[in-house]
Protein backbone atom coordinates (compact mmCIF):
# COMPACT_ATOMS: atom_id res chain seq x y z
CA UNK A 1 0.00 0.00 0.00
CA UNK A 2 1.63 3.18 -1.16
CA UNK A 3 1.14 6.52 0.37
CA UNK A 4 -0.47 7.81 -2.80
CA UNK A 5 -3.57 5.72 -2.24
CA UNK A 6 -4.73 7.90 0.56
CA UNK A 7 -6.46 10.90 -0.92
CA UNK A 8 -6.20 14.02 1.09
CA UNK A 9 -9.42 15.96 1.01
CA UNK A 10 -9.76 19.47 2.22
CA UNK A 11 -12.03 19.30 5.21
CA UNK A 12 -14.48 22.15 5.54
CA UNK A 13 -16.00 22.63 8.91
CA UNK A 14 -18.92 24.90 9.66
CA UNK A 15 -17.91 28.52 9.82
CA UNK A 16 -18.43 30.21 13.14
CA UNK A 17 -20.96 33.02 13.18
CA UNK A 18 -19.89 36.65 13.17
CA UNK A 19 -18.73 37.95 16.48
CA UNK A 20 -15.93 39.37 18.54
CA UNK A 21 -13.14 36.90 18.92
CA UNK A 22 -10.05 36.91 21.09
CA UNK A 23 -7.83 34.51 22.96
CA UNK A 24 -10.11 32.45 25.19
CA UNK A 25 -13.35 34.24 24.39
CA UNK A 26 -15.97 34.72 21.73
CA UNK A 27 -18.79 37.19 21.84
CA UNK A 28 -21.62 36.84 19.35
CA UNK A 29 -25.33 36.32 19.07
CA UNK A 30 -26.61 33.26 20.95
CA UNK A 31 -29.31 32.97 18.30
CA UNK A 32 -26.72 32.46 15.59
CA UNK A 33 -24.71 29.93 17.58
CA UNK A 34 -27.81 27.88 18.31
CA UNK A 35 -28.94 28.19 14.69
CA UNK A 36 -25.56 26.84 13.62
CA UNK A 37 -25.88 23.89 15.98
CA UNK A 38 -29.43 23.10 14.90
CA UNK A 39 -28.67 23.33 11.19
CA UNK A 40 -25.74 20.95 11.42
CA UNK A 41 -27.35 18.34 13.62
CA UNK A 42 -30.78 17.76 12.13
CA UNK A 43 -32.42 14.50 13.15
CA UNK A 44 -34.69 13.52 10.30
CA UNK A 45 -37.74 11.32 10.68
CA UNK A 46 -38.19 9.47 7.39
CA UNK A 47 -41.88 9.05 6.60
CA UNK A 48 -41.35 6.96 3.48
CA UNK A 49 -44.40 5.45 1.82
CA UNK A 50 -43.27 4.67 -1.73
CA UNK A 51 -40.62 5.12 -4.45
CA UNK A 52 -39.33 8.46 -3.12
CA UNK A 53 -38.45 6.49 0.01
CA UNK A 54 -36.20 4.27 -2.11
CA UNK A 55 -34.50 7.39 -3.44
CA UNK A 56 -34.06 8.53 0.13
CA UNK A 57 -32.27 5.26 0.94
CA UNK A 58 -29.76 6.09 -1.81
CA UNK A 59 -29.42 9.59 -0.38
CA UNK A 60 -28.67 8.19 3.05
CA UNK A 61 -26.22 5.53 1.78
CA UNK A 62 -22.51 6.01 1.20
CA UNK A 63 -22.60 7.34 -2.38
CA UNK A 64 -24.56 10.48 -1.58
CA UNK A 65 -24.03 10.29 2.17
CA UNK A 66 -26.46 12.65 3.80
CA UNK A 67 -24.46 12.23 7.01
CA UNK A 68 -22.10 14.88 5.61
CA UNK A 69 -24.74 17.45 6.47
CA UNK A 70 -24.99 16.39 10.09
CA UNK A 71 -28.21 14.47 9.40
CA UNK A 72 -26.60 11.19 10.26
CA UNK A 73 -28.96 10.09 12.96
CA UNK A 74 -32.38 9.09 11.71
CA UNK A 75 -34.97 9.29 14.39
CA UNK A 76 -37.77 6.77 14.17
CA UNK A 77 -39.49 8.39 17.10
CA UNK A 78 -41.17 11.72 16.38
CA UNK A 79 -40.33 12.89 19.90
CA UNK A 80 -36.64 13.21 19.11
CA UNK A 81 -36.90 14.35 15.51
CA UNK A 82 -36.36 17.86 14.14
CA UNK A 83 -37.16 17.26 10.51
CA UNK A 84 -40.11 15.36 9.11
CA UNK A 85 -39.25 14.05 5.65
CA UNK A 86 -42.42 12.97 3.87
CA UNK A 87 -41.52 10.85 0.87
CA UNK A 88 -44.22 9.25 -1.20
CA UNK A 89 -47.94 9.09 -1.86
CA UNK A 90 -50.07 9.86 1.17
CA UNK A 91 -53.48 8.22 0.90
CA UNK A 92 -56.35 10.01 2.59
CA UNK A 93 -56.48 7.20 5.10
CA UNK A 94 -52.82 7.83 6.01
CA UNK A 95 -53.52 11.56 6.55
CA UNK A 96 -54.49 11.40 10.25
CA UNK A 97 -51.41 9.27 10.99
CA UNK A 98 -49.07 11.75 9.31
CA UNK A 99 -50.72 14.57 11.19
CA UNK A 100 -50.34 12.78 14.49
CA UNK A 101 -46.65 12.17 13.80
CA UNK A 102 -46.24 15.89 13.07
CA UNK A 103 -48.07 16.86 16.24
CA UNK A 104 -45.91 14.54 18.33
CA UNK A 105 -42.71 16.22 17.19
CA UNK A 106 -41.24 18.79 19.57
CA UNK A 107 -40.50 22.36 18.50
CA UNK A 108 -38.49 23.45 16.63
CA UNK A 109 -39.56 21.24 13.76
CA UNK A 110 -39.34 21.43 9.99
CA UNK A 111 -41.11 19.56 7.23
CA UNK A 112 -39.57 18.53 3.92
CA UNK A 113 -42.01 17.33 1.27
CA UNK A 114 -40.14 15.07 -1.16
CA UNK A 115 -41.55 14.28 -4.59
CA UNK A 116 -44.62 15.12 -6.64
CA UNK A 117 -47.01 12.92 -4.65
CA UNK A 118 -46.25 14.36 -1.23
CA UNK A 119 -46.24 17.89 -2.66
CA UNK A 120 -49.38 17.79 -4.80
CA UNK A 121 -50.77 14.28 -5.12
CA UNK A 122 -48.71 13.83 -8.29
CA UNK A 123 -50.18 11.53 -10.89
CA UNK A 124 -52.65 10.20 -8.34
CA UNK A 125 -55.45 12.69 -8.88
CA UNK A 126 -58.00 10.30 -7.46
CA UNK A 127 -60.59 9.97 -4.73
CA UNK A 128 -58.35 8.07 -2.32
CA UNK A 129 -55.15 10.16 -2.38
CA UNK A 130 -54.39 13.33 -0.45
CA UNK A 131 -53.68 16.12 -2.95
CA UNK A 132 -50.53 17.36 -1.22
CA UNK A 133 -49.56 17.04 2.43
CA UNK A 134 -49.82 20.81 2.85
CA UNK A 135 -53.55 20.23 3.18
CA UNK A 136 -53.03 18.79 6.65
CA UNK A 137 -49.61 19.97 7.89
CA UNK A 138 -47.43 23.03 7.15
CA UNK A 139 -44.50 22.38 4.80
CA UNK A 140 -41.17 24.26 4.83
CA UNK A 141 -39.48 23.01 1.66
CA UNK A 142 -40.85 21.19 -1.38
CA UNK A 143 -38.64 18.96 -3.53
CA UNK A 144 -40.18 18.38 -6.96
CA UNK A 145 -39.52 15.26 -9.03
CA UNK A 146 -41.03 11.86 -9.67
CA UNK A 147 -38.99 10.67 -7.89
CA UNK A 148 -36.37 13.38 -7.32
CA UNK A 149 -32.70 12.42 -7.61
CA UNK A 150 -30.64 12.19 -4.41
CA UNK A 151 -28.94 15.47 -5.35
CA UNK A 152 -32.33 17.16 -5.29
CA UNK A 153 -33.17 15.71 -1.90
CA UNK A 154 -29.82 16.95 -0.58
CA UNK A 155 -30.60 20.38 -2.02
CA UNK A 156 -33.86 20.27 -0.05
CA UNK A 157 -31.97 19.35 3.13
CA UNK A 158 -29.59 22.27 2.54
CA UNK A 159 -32.54 24.62 2.16
CA UNK A 160 -33.88 23.33 5.49
CA UNK A 161 -30.43 23.95 6.99
CA UNK A 162 -30.60 27.55 5.76
CA UNK A 163 -34.00 27.95 7.41
CA UNK A 164 -32.73 26.47 10.68
CA UNK A 165 -29.63 28.64 10.61
CA UNK A 166 -31.47 31.90 10.08
CA UNK A 167 -34.52 31.29 12.22
CA UNK A 168 -35.11 33.80 14.97
CA UNK A 169 -35.59 32.66 18.54
CA UNK A 170 -38.96 34.30 18.72
CA UNK A 171 -40.42 32.80 15.57
CA UNK A 172 -41.99 29.75 17.23
CA UNK A 173 -43.57 31.93 19.92
CA UNK A 174 -44.90 34.57 17.56
CA UNK A 175 -48.61 35.12 17.00
CA UNK A 176 -48.04 34.72 13.29
CA UNK A 177 -46.67 31.20 13.80
CA UNK A 178 -49.53 30.27 16.10
CA UNK A 179 -52.03 31.62 13.59
CA UNK A 180 -50.39 29.52 10.89
CA UNK A 181 -50.68 26.36 13.02
CA UNK A 182 -54.26 27.22 13.92
CA UNK A 183 -55.13 27.48 10.25
CA UNK A 184 -54.24 23.78 10.06
CA UNK A 185 -56.30 23.09 13.15
CA UNK A 186 -53.19 22.36 15.24
CA UNK A 187 -53.03 23.85 18.73
Amino acid at each position, binding site marked *: MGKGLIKRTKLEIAKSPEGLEGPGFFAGKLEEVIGLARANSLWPLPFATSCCGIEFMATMASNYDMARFGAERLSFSPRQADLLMVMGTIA*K*KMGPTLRQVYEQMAEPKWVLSVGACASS*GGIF*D*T*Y*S*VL*QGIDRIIPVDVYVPGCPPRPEQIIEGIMKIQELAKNESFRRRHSDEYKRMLNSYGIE
Partner: protein
Amino acid sequence: MDKKELLELVYTKLKEKFHGSIESAELLYDFPVFTVNKEHIHEALVFLKEEPEFNFHFLTDLTGIQTADEKHLGVVYHLHNMPKNFRIRVKTFFPMSNPEIPTAVDIWAGANWMERETYDFFGVKFKGHPNLKRILNVDEMDIYPLRKEYPLEDQTRDDKSDKMFGR
Protein backbone atom coordinates in the same frame (compact mmCIF):
# COMPACT_ATOMS: atom_id res chain seq x y z
CA MET B 1 -61.87 -33.29 -17.41
CA ASP B 2 -61.78 -30.39 -19.83
CA LYS B 3 -63.61 -27.13 -19.38
CA LYS B 4 -66.52 -28.04 -21.61
CA GLU B 5 -67.24 -31.24 -19.69
CA LEU B 6 -67.00 -29.36 -16.40
CA LEU B 7 -69.45 -26.77 -17.70
CA GLU B 8 -71.87 -29.51 -18.74
CA LEU B 9 -71.52 -31.39 -15.47
CA VAL B 10 -72.10 -28.37 -13.24
CA TYR B 11 -74.88 -27.05 -15.46
CA THR B 12 -76.82 -30.34 -15.44
CA LYS B 13 -76.59 -30.59 -11.66
CA LEU B 14 -77.55 -26.96 -11.13
CA LYS B 15 -80.47 -27.16 -13.54
CA GLU B 16 -81.75 -30.30 -11.83
CA LYS B 17 -81.90 -28.49 -8.52
CA PHE B 18 -82.72 -24.90 -9.42
CA HIS B 19 -84.60 -25.12 -12.76
CA GLY B 20 -85.27 -21.59 -13.98
CA SER B 21 -82.89 -19.83 -11.63
CA ILE B 22 -79.87 -20.48 -13.79
CA GLU B 23 -79.98 -17.61 -16.26
CA SER B 24 -77.01 -18.67 -18.35
CA ALA B 25 -74.14 -21.13 -18.53
CA GLU B 26 -71.40 -20.51 -21.04
CA LEU B 27 -67.73 -20.90 -21.73
CA LEU B 28 -66.18 -17.42 -21.67
CA TYR B 29 -62.48 -17.16 -22.50
CA ASP B 30 -62.14 -20.89 -21.84
CA PHE B 31 -63.73 -20.56 -18.42
CA PRO B 32 -67.13 -21.92 -17.30
CA VAL B 33 -69.35 -19.04 -16.22
CA PHE B 34 -72.80 -19.31 -14.65
CA THR B 35 -75.30 -16.55 -14.03
CA VAL B 36 -77.64 -17.30 -11.19
CA ASN B 37 -80.81 -15.49 -10.18
CA LYS B 38 -80.32 -13.31 -7.09
CA GLU B 39 -83.12 -15.11 -5.21
CA HIS B 40 -81.30 -18.43 -5.31
CA ILE B 41 -77.66 -17.36 -5.22
CA HIS B 42 -77.11 -18.41 -1.62
CA GLU B 43 -78.62 -21.87 -2.04
CA ALA B 44 -76.74 -22.32 -5.29
CA LEU B 45 -73.43 -21.46 -3.62
CA VAL B 46 -74.12 -23.84 -0.75
CA PHE B 47 -74.98 -26.55 -3.28
CA LEU B 48 -71.79 -25.92 -5.26
CA LYS B 49 -69.77 -26.29 -2.09
CA GLU B 50 -71.55 -29.30 -0.63
CA GLU B 51 -72.18 -31.42 -3.78
CA PRO B 52 -69.56 -34.20 -3.52
CA GLU B 53 -69.02 -34.44 -7.27
CA PHE B 54 -67.46 -31.00 -7.63
CA ASN B 55 -67.21 -29.68 -4.04
CA PHE B 56 -66.00 -26.12 -4.57
CA HIS B 57 -64.45 -25.72 -1.16
CA PHE B 58 -62.37 -22.64 -1.91
CA LEU B 59 -63.53 -19.11 -2.71
CA THR B 60 -60.69 -17.63 -4.77
CA ASP B 61 -62.23 -14.22 -5.24
CA LEU B 62 -65.38 -12.25 -4.74
CA THR B 63 -65.84 -8.88 -6.37
CA GLY B 64 -68.38 -6.42 -7.64
CA ILE B 65 -69.23 -5.13 -11.10
CA GLN B 66 -71.49 -2.47 -12.57
CA THR B 67 -73.16 -3.05 -15.92
CA ALA B 68 -72.49 -0.58 -18.74
CA ASP B 69 -76.08 0.71 -18.75
CA GLU B 70 -75.51 1.78 -15.11
CA LYS B 71 -78.74 0.14 -14.05
CA HIS B 72 -77.48 -3.07 -12.49
CA LEU B 73 -74.82 -4.14 -10.06
CA GLY B 74 -73.36 -7.60 -9.93
CA VAL B 75 -71.32 -9.82 -7.70
CA VAL B 76 -68.85 -12.33 -9.13
CA TYR B 77 -67.68 -15.43 -7.25
CA HIS B 78 -64.61 -17.38 -8.35
CA LEU B 79 -64.78 -20.93 -7.04
CA HIS B 80 -62.05 -23.54 -6.94
CA ASN B 81 -61.75 -27.21 -6.10
CA MET B 82 -58.08 -27.80 -5.46
CA PRO B 83 -57.83 -31.65 -5.49
CA LYS B 84 -59.68 -31.90 -8.81
CA ASN B 85 -58.50 -28.53 -10.17
CA PHE B 86 -61.99 -27.37 -11.08
CA ARG B 87 -62.52 -23.66 -11.43
CA ILE B 88 -65.76 -21.87 -12.23
CA ARG B 89 -67.16 -18.36 -12.04
CA VAL B 90 -70.62 -17.57 -10.70
CA LYS B 91 -72.32 -14.24 -11.32
CA THR B 92 -75.47 -12.66 -10.05
CA PHE B 93 -77.06 -9.34 -11.01
CA PHE B 94 -79.55 -7.09 -9.27
CA PRO B 95 -80.92 -3.56 -9.84
CA MET B 96 -79.02 -0.57 -8.39
CA SER B 97 -82.16 0.58 -6.58
CA ASN B 98 -81.98 -2.43 -4.27
CA PRO B 99 -78.36 -3.59 -4.02
CA GLU B 100 -78.88 -6.26 -1.41
CA ILE B 101 -77.80 -9.89 -1.53
CA PRO B 102 -77.22 -12.57 1.09
CA THR B 103 -73.73 -12.90 2.51
CA ALA B 104 -71.43 -15.83 1.72
CA VAL B 105 -69.49 -15.58 4.98
CA ASP B 106 -71.45 -18.54 6.38
CA ILE B 107 -70.27 -20.65 3.43
CA TRP B 108 -66.66 -19.47 3.10
CA ALA B 109 -65.17 -17.47 6.00
CA GLY B 110 -62.80 -15.88 3.47
CA ALA B 111 -65.70 -13.95 2.01
CA ASN B 112 -65.66 -11.61 4.99
CA TRP B 113 -63.09 -9.04 3.83
CA MET B 114 -63.93 -9.46 0.15
CA GLU B 115 -67.55 -8.58 0.84
CA ARG B 116 -66.46 -5.58 2.88
CA GLU B 117 -64.34 -4.46 -0.09
CA THR B 118 -67.26 -4.92 -2.47
CA TYR B 119 -69.46 -2.92 -0.12
CA ASP B 120 -66.76 -0.25 0.14
CA PHE B 121 -66.41 0.26 -3.61
CA PHE B 122 -69.86 -0.61 -5.02
CA GLY B 123 -72.24 -0.23 -2.09
CA VAL B 124 -73.52 -3.79 -2.27
CA LYS B 125 -75.24 -4.59 1.02
CA PHE B 126 -74.52 -8.16 2.10
CA LYS B 127 -77.37 -9.27 4.31
CA GLY B 128 -76.17 -11.22 7.33
CA HIS B 129 -72.53 -10.06 7.12
CA PRO B 130 -71.07 -9.91 10.66
CA ASN B 131 -69.20 -6.62 10.22
CA LEU B 132 -70.21 -4.77 7.08
CA LYS B 133 -68.18 -1.54 7.08
CA ARG B 134 -65.59 0.09 4.84
CA ILE B 135 -62.26 -1.69 4.70
CA LEU B 136 -59.92 0.24 2.34
CA ASN B 137 -61.32 3.76 2.09
CA VAL B 138 -61.67 6.34 4.84
CA ASP B 139 -64.71 5.82 7.04
CA GLU B 140 -65.99 9.33 6.32
CA MET B 141 -66.30 8.67 2.59
CA ASP B 142 -69.89 9.15 1.47
CA ILE B 143 -69.62 7.72 -2.04
CA TYR B 144 -69.02 4.29 -3.58
CA PRO B 145 -66.04 5.27 -5.71
CA LEU B 146 -66.06 2.52 -8.35
CA ARG B 147 -69.64 3.21 -9.41
CA LYS B 148 -69.74 5.07 -12.71
CA GLU B 149 -71.90 7.86 -11.33
CA TYR B 150 -69.02 9.14 -9.17
CA PRO B 151 -66.01 10.86 -10.76
CA LEU B 152 -62.61 9.22 -10.40
CA GLU B 153 -60.70 12.45 -9.82
CA ASP B 154 -60.41 14.15 -6.48
CA GLN B 155 -63.16 16.75 -6.22
CA THR B 156 -61.37 19.04 -3.76
CA ARG B 157 -58.87 20.40 -6.28
CA ASP B 158 -59.46 23.82 -7.76
CA ASP B 159 -56.24 24.24 -9.74
CA LYS B 160 -57.27 21.99 -12.61
CA SER B 161 -59.56 23.94 -14.87
CA ASP B 162 -60.82 22.06 -17.91
CA LYS B 163 -59.46 24.81 -20.16
CA MET B 164 -55.88 23.90 -19.25
CA PHE B 165 -56.39 20.28 -20.16
CA GLY B 166 -58.31 20.76 -23.41
CA ARG B 167 -61.46 19.16 -22.06
